[in-house]
């Protein structure tokens, strides 16, 4: 069926293209946008202008945003610093701690499926003489707490492990990780970007010392984020990575992005109110999508733990079908793939590789990230398109043909470099 024929037969309430890539970014909530606009307009003051009303109004808006973020994560407002986003927050946390506590030790522990903002920062610190341990993950995508215990030594100054993974949605056992770190006197940083607003996250209960947050994953604008920096038990100190004026308690200089911050604050306030209900709705939609797809196709595998997972994430490998060709077949749906063909570097997803699945399943994976604006009608439509496209591509696939003939594909000698 051509794309046009499908478009004409759209069910009610479905408009194309459909967005299901909410781990990449989210559409700003209209309420967030509305809250931000005055700060681009008549309320344009610099929050650091202490001497006039333009500044005071801006400062007040920033402080309100600080409170809203603090409330969402169980922190004190003095513990929230604003940044340009989670990548900067991750850099500030890791480099800031490394530089500050260098006399105490030079060992940092992280894990294999972290976001590049953490992994690349750690790689840079290795060049500066720090030792970094990259813990492996188990098949379900979670670290083994015993591995973490064994990795810690008297030179360990920081553990940085994400709360939820952006590709497979898997939740790490951060409460236990934090408890272990506190026991050993090691600081615990978590990249909480994908977890905030989706699952309960509380820096006190979860024993977190430093946490990275961004607005654009929780229906806020791009270009703004925050870093939670604990002030008590223990008091965390960071060396600033950006100098120039000493804003944000000396931890991050630079004029504040007032409209962006207002947006982040509003997004957090909405998340605080609506997270419980929305989580249920997301899980229901995700399970509806999962059941429809897996009920109609054989040899589909969910990547990562089903139990410890974000409610809106589904990451499936479709055996014998390559990811980019699948995306092409559902080109009116926005999702992403772990296939090498979809990456700029032609490398398959390192997160899926870390699960031990094998490159062929990484190439066959699709990530669905459901969001606030997806509907049941959209889920049903997407499920149908996925099933149709996978079926069609399997008819085109030599691997499917070989598998149906009973050939064990793991035993085949592939001629990747054929002789002429």
């Amino acid at each position, binding site marked *: 069926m051509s*794309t046009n024929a499908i478009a004409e037969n759209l069910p009610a309430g479905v408009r194309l293209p459909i967005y299901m890539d909410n781990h990449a970014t989210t559409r700003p909530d209209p309420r967030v946008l509305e809250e931000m606009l005055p700060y681009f307009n008549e309320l344009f003051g610099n929050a650091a202008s202490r001497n006039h009303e333009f500044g005071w109004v801006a400062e007040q808006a920033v402080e309100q945003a600080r409170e809203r973020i603090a409330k969402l994560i169980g922190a004190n407002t003095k513990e929230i610093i604003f940044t340009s986003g989670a990548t900067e927050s991750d850099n500030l946390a890791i480099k800031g701690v490394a530089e500050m506590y260098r006399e105490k030790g030079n060992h940092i522990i992280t894990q294999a499926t972290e976001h590049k903002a953490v992994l690349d920062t750690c790689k840079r610190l290795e060049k500066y003489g720090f030792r970094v341990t990259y813990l492996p993950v188990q098949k379900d995508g979670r670290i083994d707490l015993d591995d973490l215990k064994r990795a810690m030594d008297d030179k360990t100054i920081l553990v940085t492990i994400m709360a939820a993974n952006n590709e497979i949605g898997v939740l790490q056992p951060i409460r236990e990780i934090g408890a272990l770190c506190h026991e050993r006197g090691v600081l615990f940083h978590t990249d909480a970007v994908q977890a905030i607003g989706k699952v309960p996250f509380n820096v006190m209960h979860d024993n977190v010392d430093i946490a990275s947050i961004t607005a654009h994953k929780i229906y806020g604008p791009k270009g703004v984020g925050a870093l939670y920096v604990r002030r008590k038990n223990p008091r965390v100190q960071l060396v600033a990575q950006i100098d120039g004026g000493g804003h944000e308690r000396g931890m991050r200089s630079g004029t504040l992005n007032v409209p962006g911050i207002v947006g982040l604050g509003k997004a957090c306030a909405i998340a605080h109110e609506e997270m419980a209900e929305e989580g249920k709705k997301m899980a229901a939609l995700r399970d509806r999508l999962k059941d429809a797809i897996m009920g109609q196709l054989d040899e589909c595998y969910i990547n990562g733990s089903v139990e410890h997972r974000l409610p809106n994430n589904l990451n499936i490998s479709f055996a014998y079908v*390559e990811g980019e060709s699948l995306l*092409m077949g559902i080109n009116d749906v926005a999702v992403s793939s772990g296939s090498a063909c979809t990456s700029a570097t032609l490398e398959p997803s390192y997160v899926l590789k870390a699960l031990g699945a094998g490159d*062929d399943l990484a190439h066959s994976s699709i990530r669905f990230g459901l969001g606030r604006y997806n509907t049941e009608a959209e889920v049903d439509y997407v499920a149908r398109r996925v099933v149709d496209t996978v079926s069609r591509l399997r008819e085109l696939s030599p*691997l*499917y*043909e070989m598998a149906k003939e009973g050939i064990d*594909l793991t035993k085949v000698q592939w*001629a990747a470099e*054929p002789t002429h």
Partner: protein
Amino acid sequence: MAYSDKVLDHYTNPRNVGSLDKNSPEVGTGLVGAPECGDVMKLQIKVNPATNVIEDAKFKTFGCGSAIASSSLATEWVKGKTVDEALQIKNTEIVKELSLPPVKIHCSVLAEDAIRAAIGDWKKKNCQTQEAAPAAVGAAQQA
């Protein structure tokens, strides 16, 4: 990444999808690539034994849209050519025809490899049937 119209056309309406009887002496089968690389192409040709003309060709591909298009195009191009003419097909011609971007050039290389592998397989089968059996066994033992 925007696909060229031709790539989209081959993807939506692939030519010559399917399989030929790999046990037939007239059929040559090329299987190139590896699942771990994200690209596997099977290309088969049926050659007229009297004229060495490729009368039919079929393909199956596990790979991206550009890989599917490259192999689909390859089956179109080999049909009607003699085996020696088909060996002249260069990946650069596929790149040009499909307007493949630099990051997808390797798909065209694999398609060229698939053509050669299919022809190589057919040649091997047809040389063996021409030579006496003991020589063929000797060749197998040396390999």
